[in-house]
């Protein structure tokens, strides 16, 4: 199985979905995304057999641009995350009906294609193209199928698009500049460059702008909550579950190896920013009235911690960041799905209008509770593994970072439990709340199963990502 096949499956899937018509579109999309997941598993098995999984072909001769894909352990992990979450996300949307659903599902599959491409690309420009491509589907998904007032939605979505595009264009400049130096966009060439420290600084900052907006790190996060709120839940899941990880992945894959000196010199600043995001996000989440907004800020807090971990430039930090990325991907998809399940029944996202659901829906309550617990990184869930490793790496840099970053344990529990209490507990709600349907339950169970399995046995993922992270670390340390 060739690495390009995976992308082709997804791309074909997008077209097939569009042309299969509104009625069949969800099923076709699910079929193709599952196929892609199977493909990713195939790739994984080949990788485990020690095969080099890469594809490279000269695309444009001048300037020299390759169509180069390479799947190392890290990229594979992220592709697996993408291809595993996409079917879940698609499946989770089966309870809703969307007008013009063929376009809707086609965009989802297309986005999955673009994001997989981003993770796999080993040529800077190809990577950039996929990076930007993934922005367009989510823009339309949020714009057309989003909820709330059209004007406000428009404002939020446009801000999101322009903001993220603004960041990435600076990244493009950095890439072009690097191309001048290296003569190609291939990552292997870019990481072999001997840039002066001031060059590295500016390149680092250009990348940083792109990633800080995408991740998002404080204070570049202002697009996030509104978009999460306004986008349809599927879009929010894609955004929070996978797309944010693109930013974090890129930090590890591109930013740090290319400009390690700057990363080292200003390490404290970037870790500090990440941790500031943790605290700030948690505190803001505390008093959110809208469930999706609350989850948005919680997500911001989590990714802040992940970013802080990545910027420690230690193996533990990177590994923890990747683990936490995957874990967060699953848990956040689950939580947003929970929000959607509630919305399907109560037609509201205002926490104040909920309450007393538990008595009516034991299954839903248990699953929601488990997701909440995973989100607050209860040991034996996957999130704990990631969070522990990240916090450990932070403590190696400076124990204060671990303490400040560790407040997520307290504050996270505070706002999540408060949210849970106000939504689920209390006197039985007068409005009827039907327990989860089979489909809804299945999607949640899959997510939960993943969280627990890797929470107790994260070794496969660790072994998958560690060699690639070690490679990246040697690149980072090449100036020493």
């Amino acid at each position, binding site marked *: 199985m060739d690495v390009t096949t995976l992308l082709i499956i997804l791309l074909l899937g997008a077209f097939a979905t569009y042309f299969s018509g509104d009625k069949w579109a969800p099923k076709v999309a699910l079929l193709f995304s599952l196929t892609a997941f199977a493909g990713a598993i195939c790739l994984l098995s080949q990788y485990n057999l020690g095969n080099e999984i890469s594809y490279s072909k000269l*695309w*444009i*001769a*001048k*300037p020299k641009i390759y169509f180069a894909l390479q799947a190392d352990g890290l990229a594979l992990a992220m592709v697996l995350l993408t291809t595993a979450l996409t079917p879940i996300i698609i499946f989770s949307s089966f309870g809703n009906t969307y007008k*013009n659903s063929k*376009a809707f599902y086609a965009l989802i599959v297309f986005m999955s294609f673009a994001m997989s491409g981003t993770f796999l690309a080993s040529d800077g*420009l190809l990577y*950039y*193209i*996929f990076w*930007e*491509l993934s*922005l*367009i589907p989510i823009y*339309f998904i949020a*714009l*057309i199928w989003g909820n709330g007032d*059209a004007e406000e*939605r*428009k404002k939020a979505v*446009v801000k999101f*698009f*322009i903001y993220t*595009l*603004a960041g990435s*264009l*600076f990244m*493009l*400049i950095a890439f*072009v*500049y690097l*191309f*001048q130096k290296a003569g190609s966009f291939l990552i292997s060439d870019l990481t072999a460059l001997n840039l002066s420290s001031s060059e590295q600084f500016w390149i680092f900052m250009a990348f940083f702008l792109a990633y800080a907006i995408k991740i998002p790190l404080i204070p570049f996060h202002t697009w996030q909550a509104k978009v999460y709120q306004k986008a349809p839940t599927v879009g929010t899941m894609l955004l929070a579950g996978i797309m944010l990880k693109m930013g974090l992945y890129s930090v590890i894959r591109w930013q740090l190896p290319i400009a390690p000196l700057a990363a080292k010199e200003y390490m404290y600043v970037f870790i500090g920013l990440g941790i500031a995001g943790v605290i700030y996000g948690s505190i803001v989440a505390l008093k959110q009235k809208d469930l999706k907004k609350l989850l948005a800020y919680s997500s911001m807090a989590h990714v802040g911690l992940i970013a802080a971990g990545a910027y420690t430039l230690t193996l533990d930090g990177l590994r923890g960041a990747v683990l936490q990325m995957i874990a967060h991907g699953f848990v956040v998809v689950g939580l947003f799905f929970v929000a959607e399940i509630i919305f399907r029944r109560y037609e509201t996202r205002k926490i104040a209008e909920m309450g007393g659901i538990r008595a009516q829906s034991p299954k839903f309550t248990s699953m929601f509770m488990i997701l909440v617990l995973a989100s607050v990184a209860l040991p034996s869930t996957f999130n704990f593994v990631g969070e522990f490793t990240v916090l450990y790496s932070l403590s190696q840099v400076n124990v204060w970072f671990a303490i400040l970053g560790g407040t997520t344990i307290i504050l996270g529990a505070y706002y999540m439990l408060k949210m849970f209490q106000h939504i689920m507990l209390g006197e039985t709600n007068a409005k009827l709340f039907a327990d989860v349907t089979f489909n809804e339950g299945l999607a949640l169970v899959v997510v939960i199963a993943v969280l627990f399995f890797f929470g107790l046995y994260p070794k496969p993922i660790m072994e998958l990502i560690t060699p690639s992270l070690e490679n990246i670390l040697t690149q980072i340390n090449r100036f020493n």
Partner: protein
Amino acid sequence: MNTLIAITGLGILCLLFEILNFRKAIIPVTIIGLLAVLGLTYLGYNAPTSYYNNMIVVSKFSSVFTGLFTVLTVFLIALSHDFYEDHQTKISDFIAIKIFMLAGAVAMVSFGNLAMFFLGIEVLSISLYILAASNRLNVKSNEAGMKYFLMGSFASGIILFGICFIYGAMGSFDVAEITEWSRSAELPVWFPIGISLVTIGMFFKIAAVPFHFWAPDVYEGSPTLTTTTMSTLVKVVAIATLYKLLTAMNADLSDAYINIIIVISIASMTVGNIMALKQNNVKRMLAFSGISHAGFMLMTLLSISNSASSLVYYTTAYSLSGIAAFAVILYVCKNKDNEDISNFNGLGKNNPLMAAILAASLLSMAGIPIFAGFFAKLFLFNQVIEAGYLVVVIAAVINSIISVGYYFKLILAMYNKEPNEEAAKTPFVFYAVAVVAILLNIALGLFPSVVLDLLG
């Protein structure tokens, strides 16, 4: 040369057809003729020579651009049938003028003598004055024609003044001779002044700031098909000519000159983009967008020795997306008395294909990947950074960000607003042109080398 003759002949054939009452055949025949011209151009591309005492010099550069112009003209003429539905008696005139305009354009990129250059630019301009004012009962069209005429002839005067000084300095109109002499050390001051004046005249034609004021008004007032012509064909012709002129004159662009280009380029991008933000008329908005693109195209002049292929790529990408966008605009505003953005409300529901095409072409103009517009910008940035003008690229990037604001205004109107009325029937030609143009654009994005390698 053959190309030029063939084109002119085709124009006259158009007029003859009207006389011979073959009105129905005009458009098909012209299109077929133009495709044949494309073949001729290809022959010329393979055999660069000069004709008639260096009056016409067919080079790879000129052939490539001639080809591009011809393709654009094919699109424009294909669109004509439905656009001039109500003016069937005049259709031969319209088509003939467009063909002659193409002849002027070809003369402009393949001139070997400043006389050809000047005549070419005048044929082009006069055709445009006519087309701009062609809706004679419409006050806006009149005003557009008048404004364009006044300012255009003023600019022609400046260009002529410049040519005059070049002649004064060199004693010849022959580009080859001028090139040769311009390498000698002692040049009279007349020469740089002449070059500057000609350049300024061309700045006017490509609508660079501060010579851009005509563009929005004229674009808005002109009949939409004319606006299409101006924003695609004419802009491309002007920038190609300017490029050719500066390479041909082998003017060692002095630092001062480069600075001027930088300032004008940045100013054009900025003014164009910022002004476009608050426009309600789509044509006017695209006029400002065109101004900003002119700024981008001017960046090629910063590394003039090797940026020809970037220029070809950029212009092709830009004009193809322009054609696609205007095909949709023509469809939407066909029976409307204005081109306000509100006309596009709900297009995404009424006609998803057309909406998608417009969205795609706007994304291409904004420089979003996989569309050719992105690669155009990329190659341009690459070249400019290579030449060492990082500042310009940063300005360009900031401008790209601003530009998204107004391109998306249109997209938002299409997808986020409820339709005003029932969907209208789409003439087949609009579909065809729009689809072909956008597919070409995407194909260009996927295989940029096809165009890039034309000029090595």
